[in-house]
C-alpha cells in the first residue's frame, strides 16, 4: 500500500475498524462491520461515508457559465444560484470522460465534483477545452474533504449540529458557508444511495472533528460508518451508474440509458454531434437490468450469452442486500434489451440462465420538495 494517497480521515477509519483497500490509488475502507449491515443501516437509519477521494474543481471568471455549458451534456442554463446538476463530460465521439456534479454558485463561479480515479485526466480535459474562455480553473481536490451522510435519519442527525434549517436546502441544491459546530462547510443535498442525504465539503484539517461530532450526535439515531462496499451496492440497487462500469470512454450516456442528462437541443457542447447521430441512427446496444434464474452471482466483466454466442458483458453484478436476488446490469445488443428477454450469464465456466428486468431494483426515497 505504499505510494497510495490517504484521506484526512485515514486514522479515523482504522479507529472504527475499517478494512482498508486500494481504491483508485487511495487507501479507503471497503467495510467496517460488514457490507450488508452497513447497507441496511443506510437504508433504514443513516450511514456516514468518507468520500474525500472525490475530486473538486473550482471555476471562476467572466466566462464560467459558457465554459461549463460547452463542457457538459446537461443544460446548465436552467440552474439557479446554489443549485446542483448531474451531468457528463463527453469526448467528441460521445464516449464519457466522466460523470460529475455541477454546482452553480453564481454565473461566474462554478464548482465541479468528479471521480477520484479521473481527477488528473478530467482536469487536463478541462484545461485543454478552456483556451477560448476567460476563466480560472483550480483543481482543489487535495485541499477539500468530503463527508456524505445518507439515509432516512440523515436530516435529523445533521440538524443537531448545523446552523441552518435543513428543510430549506432542497433536493439538488446547496448552501455555502454553513456552520457545523463551528466549522465552515459547503452542504448539498444529492446523494449516491437512493436515500435522502447530504454532502459536506470542508477543509481537510476539520474533517476528523466533524466526522466524530456526527458519530456522537448520530449514535442514538443509528448512524454507522459505511465503507465503499456498501456505497457500491446501494448505488447499484437504485440504478445509479459507476464510471468504469456503466460509463466509460467506450460507452455513451445514451447507451447507458442516461439520455435524460443529455440535452441535445441545448447550445453546442463537446460530443453533441456524435450523440445526435447516435440517437437518429438508433441505438445498437444498451445497458439493461437482469436477474439470475439459475443459481450464481453475476460480476463485473462476466460474459453475456444468447443464441449460442457471446452478445455482451456484465457492467455490475451482485447478490443484492436489499432485494435479496442475484442481479446485475449488462450491455447487450438492442434486440436483446426488451423486458423478460432470456439471456445467459457465463459465471466462470458455467452458462447460467437469466432474464432482462427493469433496472429499478429498489425504489428511491429522496425528499423532493
Amino acid at each position, binding site marked *: 500500500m505504499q505510494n497510495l494517497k490517504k484521506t484526512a480521515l485515514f486514522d479515523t477509519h482504522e479507529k472504527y475498524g475499517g478494512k482498508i483497500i486500494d481504491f483508485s490509488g487511495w487507501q479507503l475502507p471497503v467495510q467496517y462491520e*460488514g*457490507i450488508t449491515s452497513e447497507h441496511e443501516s443506510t437504508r433504514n437509519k443513516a450511514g456516514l461515508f468518507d468520500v474525500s477521494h472525490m475530486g473538486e474543481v473550482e471555476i471562476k471568471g467572466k466566462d464560467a457559465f459558457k465554459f461549463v455549458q460547452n463542457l457538459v451534456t446537461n443544460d446548465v442554463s436552467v440552474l439557479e444560484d446554489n443549485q446542483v446538476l448531474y451531468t457528463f463530460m463527453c469526448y467528441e465521439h460521445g464516449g464519457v470522460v466522466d460523470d460529475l456534479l455541477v454546482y452553480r454558485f453564481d454565473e461566474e463561479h462554478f464548482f465541479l465534483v468528479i471521480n477520484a480515479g479521473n481527477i488528473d485526466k478530467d482536469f487536463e480535459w478541462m484545461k485543454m477545452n478552456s483556451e477560448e474562455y476567460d476563466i480560472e480553473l483550480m483543481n482543489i481536490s487535495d485541499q477539500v474533504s468530503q463527508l456524505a451522510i445518507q439515509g432516512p435519519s440523515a436530516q435529523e442527525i445533521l440538524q443537531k449540529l448545523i446552523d441552518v434549517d435543513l428543510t430549506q436546502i432542497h433536493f439538488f441544491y446547496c448552501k455555502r458557508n454553513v456552520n457545523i459546530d463551528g466549522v465552515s462547510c459547503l452542504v448539498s443535498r444529492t446523494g449516491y444511495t437512493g436515500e435522502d442525504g447530504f454532502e459536506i465539503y470542508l477543509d481537510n484539517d476539520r474533517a476528523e472533528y466533524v466526522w466524530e461530532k456526527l458519530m456522537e450526535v448520530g449514535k442514538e439515531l443509528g448512524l454507522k460508518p459505511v465503507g465503499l462496499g456498501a456505497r457500491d451496492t446501494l448505488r447499484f440497487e437504485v440504478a445509479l451508474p459507476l464510471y468504469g462500469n456503466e460509463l466509460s470512454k467506450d460507452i455513451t450516456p445514451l447507451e447507458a440509458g442516461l439520455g435524460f442528462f443529455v440535452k441535445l437541443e441545448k447550445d453546442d457542447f463537446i460530443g453533441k454531434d456524435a450523440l445526435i447521430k447516435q440517437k437518429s441512427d438508433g441505438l445498437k446496444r444498451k445497458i439493461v437490468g437482469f436477474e439470475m434464474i439459475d*443459481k*450464481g*452471482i453475476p460480476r463485473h466483466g462476466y460474459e453475456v450469452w444468447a443464441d449460442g454466442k457471446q452478445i455482451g458483458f456484465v457492467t455490475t453484478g451482485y*447478490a443484492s*442486500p436489499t432485494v435479496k436476488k*442475484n442481479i446485475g446490469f449488462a450491455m447487450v445488443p438492442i434486440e436483446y434489451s426488451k423486458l423478460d428477454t432470456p439471456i445467459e450469464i457465463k459465471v466462470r465456466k458455467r452458462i447460467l440462465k437469466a432474464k432482462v428486468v427493469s433496472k429499478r431494483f429498489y425504489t428511491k426515497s429522496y425528499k423532493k420538495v
Partner: protein
Amino acid sequence: MKIVEGIYYSKDHEWIKVEGDKACIGITDYAQHALGEIVYVEMPEVDDELDSGDAFSVIESVKAASDAYMPLSGTVIEINEELEDSPELLNSSPYESWILKVKISDLSELDSLMNHEDYKAFCESESH
C-alpha cells in the same frame, strides 16, 4: 482469531479433519474473516476426482468470488448441502461447517500440511 487444535491446516487457509482415509475440508476463521460476508458457495460434485491444488469450490462474498483449493488429492464423497441455503454458516461457525468430504488418495500428502501451532505462526506472518 480462532484456531482449533488436533486438525490439519493448509497455506490456503483450509482446515482438514482426518478420520481414517477420509477427510472433511472447510475454511478457517482467518479465511472467512478475510473474505467478508459469504453469500454463495459453489460446490464440486460427488465422485469428482480432485488433485491437491485444484480449485474445489468458489466462495462468493458480497464483493468478490474466491477459489478454494484442495489441500490434498481425493475423491469427493459428500458435500455439505446445508451451505446451499445458509452460506453464512462459513462466517458464523467456520470450524463446524465443512464444505466437502473426500476419500484421501495419498495419505503421505498429509505430511505437507501444518498443525495448529505452525498455522498460527503462518497467520501471524501473513498479517505483517
